[in-house]
């Protein structure tokens, strides 16, 4: 019988500083643990506890997994103190990720903000690796300041160049600085003039609560049906396997029925944006 509560040992191979509060941890699990993009895992700081994170690397890379983590509290602050060579635990994968197969032939609009870039990078890489299946990817990303943009090199140039005909990246910051030449304004200010056939498109939104809310409203305004808007629901989680009750949203256990859920399913549930 499989012990669903046991973490698998994983070694930290590399720690990358992304922003003053966000780091990417490249870890090597000591046992097989694959995932589909958008699924999440529980990462253990030994003796301290677990917290849920969505891998930010491609699901097609099996030997190592990236987690991009913002320091906000007990577990994440301790993770930020950890260095190359130290051990963590990983448990998963859990939940339902992005339904890539159902998106074949479609144009994909991604709206992200802050550390929401983590699952979105995994999604983006997964889409790019089978780009023939999709018509277009438009990725709109917002950060507070230029220094808060999580994956700088990819967003500024590299990603666009993969296939300029099919891929468009729009980056914006709430507050610019002397070096910033791009758009200034919250992410919803770039979610317009999409050049997308909404009827053949799906939207993805991931970011901090306030951005999730206004990002979703922006997509609704652009004409996306509720069932085509994919949200990453962030709820308190403990078990990650649909038993412990912490992540309940209406009748859903977000850890199993989500974390990726379409807006039509969650729209009428209590306090979805909190």
């Amino acid at each position, binding site marked *: 019988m499989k012990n669903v509560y046991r973490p698998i040992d994983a070694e930290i191979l590399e720690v990358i500083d992304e922003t003053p509060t966000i780091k990417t941890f490249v870890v090597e699990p000591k046992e097989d643990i694959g995932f589909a993009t958008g699924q999440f895992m529980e990462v253990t700081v030994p003796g301290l506890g677990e917290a849920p994170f969505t891998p930010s690397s491609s699901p097609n890379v099996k030997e190592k997994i990236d987690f991009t983590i913002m320091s906000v509290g007990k577990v994440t602050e301790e993770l930020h103190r950890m260095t190359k060579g130290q051990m963590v635990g990983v448990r998963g994968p859990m939940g339902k990720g992005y339904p890539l197969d159902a998106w074949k032939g479609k144009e994909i609009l991604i709206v992200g903000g802050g550390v929401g870039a983590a699952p979105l990078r995994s999604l983006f890489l997964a889409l790019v690796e089978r780009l023939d299946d999709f018509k277009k990817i438009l990725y709109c990303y917002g950060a507070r300041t230029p220094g808060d943009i999580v994956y700088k090199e990819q967003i500024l140039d590299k990603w666009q160049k993969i296939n300029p005909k099919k891929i468009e990246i729009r980056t914006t910051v709430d507050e610019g600085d002397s070096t910033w030449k791009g758009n200034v304004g919250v992410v919803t200010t770039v979610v317009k003039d999409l050049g997308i056939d909404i009827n053949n498109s799906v939207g993805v939104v991931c970011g901090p609560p306030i951005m999730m809310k206004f990002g979703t409203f922006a997509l609704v305004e652009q004409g996306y049906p509720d069932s085509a808007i994919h949200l990453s629901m962030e709820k308190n989680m*403990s078990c990650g396997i*649909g038993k*412990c009750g912490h992540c309940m949203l209406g009748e859903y256990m977000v850890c199993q029925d989500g974390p990726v859920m379409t807006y039509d399913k969650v729209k009428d549930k209590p306090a979805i944006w909190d």
Partner: protein
Amino acid sequence: MQTHFITDTDLVTFFTSLEKRGPMYMAVRDEEGTVRVKPSSEVGSYSYPGVRAFQPLKPFFFSALEEVAEYPSADKPLKEARPFTIVGAASCDLRAIEALDRVFLEGDFKDPFYEEKRSKALIIGFDCTDPLETCFCVLMGVEPYVEKGFDLGLAKVEGGYVVEVGSDKGKQVVDDNKGLFKPATENHLSQRKALRDKTRDIVEKQSREYKPATTWQDLMSKVYEDSTWARNVETCVECGACLFICPTCQCFLLYDQRAGDRFKRLKMWDSCVYKNFTRVAGGANPRERLIDRFRHRYYHKLDYFPKTYGFEGCTGCGRCIVACPGEIDMRKVLKEADKS
């Protein structure tokens, strides 16, 4: 399945033989008249409990605190549970076990600790004869007599018990003690029926005033904003007693600790009325207010659980009514919502 008869004295012999399986726990009345579940070694002589025990049966399968992992990984096999026997599951207790089975054994993942203990249990149910004033099982689709979910079901009749076999495991232990059982007669069965009708009548009468106008789910779909929540939450002290004593409450928290030079993970009961239960990073909390947490319990039991599993997550056992220091009576809270 088969129905047998066993005499009072043979039942005691039967129980003694079942003790060979492993530990046995019995629901019996104590000196104060409260039915409690105790190890059989502490029970002088067996007597029919007549009503559900004070405590729920969930700790037999879902412990208040248990170690569920040790790491860095040793990948040692899970601890095997010993076979054990529970004598005295009321019908509402059986429904509660059914609810927990659905939660812990269904879905993409099974809880191996629950599964192990559950698979080792022999459960002997019984028909209620002395319902408590707080019993309202019939409003939750549960009869006050055993219908399913038991290995053996007992009903008190003159001179002994009707024993109904409910599973292969139950059949096995009857076959192993063949000499003790006789076929149940028409007379036995009609006595059982009469007692069942009588008990049902009592529970039905005392519950009538709390019966929802339509269904619970229909009621819940209309009363989310009702003033009953604000009125009744006033005496809630956030102790969690209603949840810990609830036979179907499933919530828990995983909690890690250092153990020498290794670490262990504990699984312990948690309660959705506690403020931090739903708090997320940065301090946001979808159920910040006590009223939201108070209401969540009702919605989980009567709206969300049925949406997922097709039956109420409340069994009508009434334990939460007895346990609440704020004297909050679930039946009344819902009745007030239904009236307005």
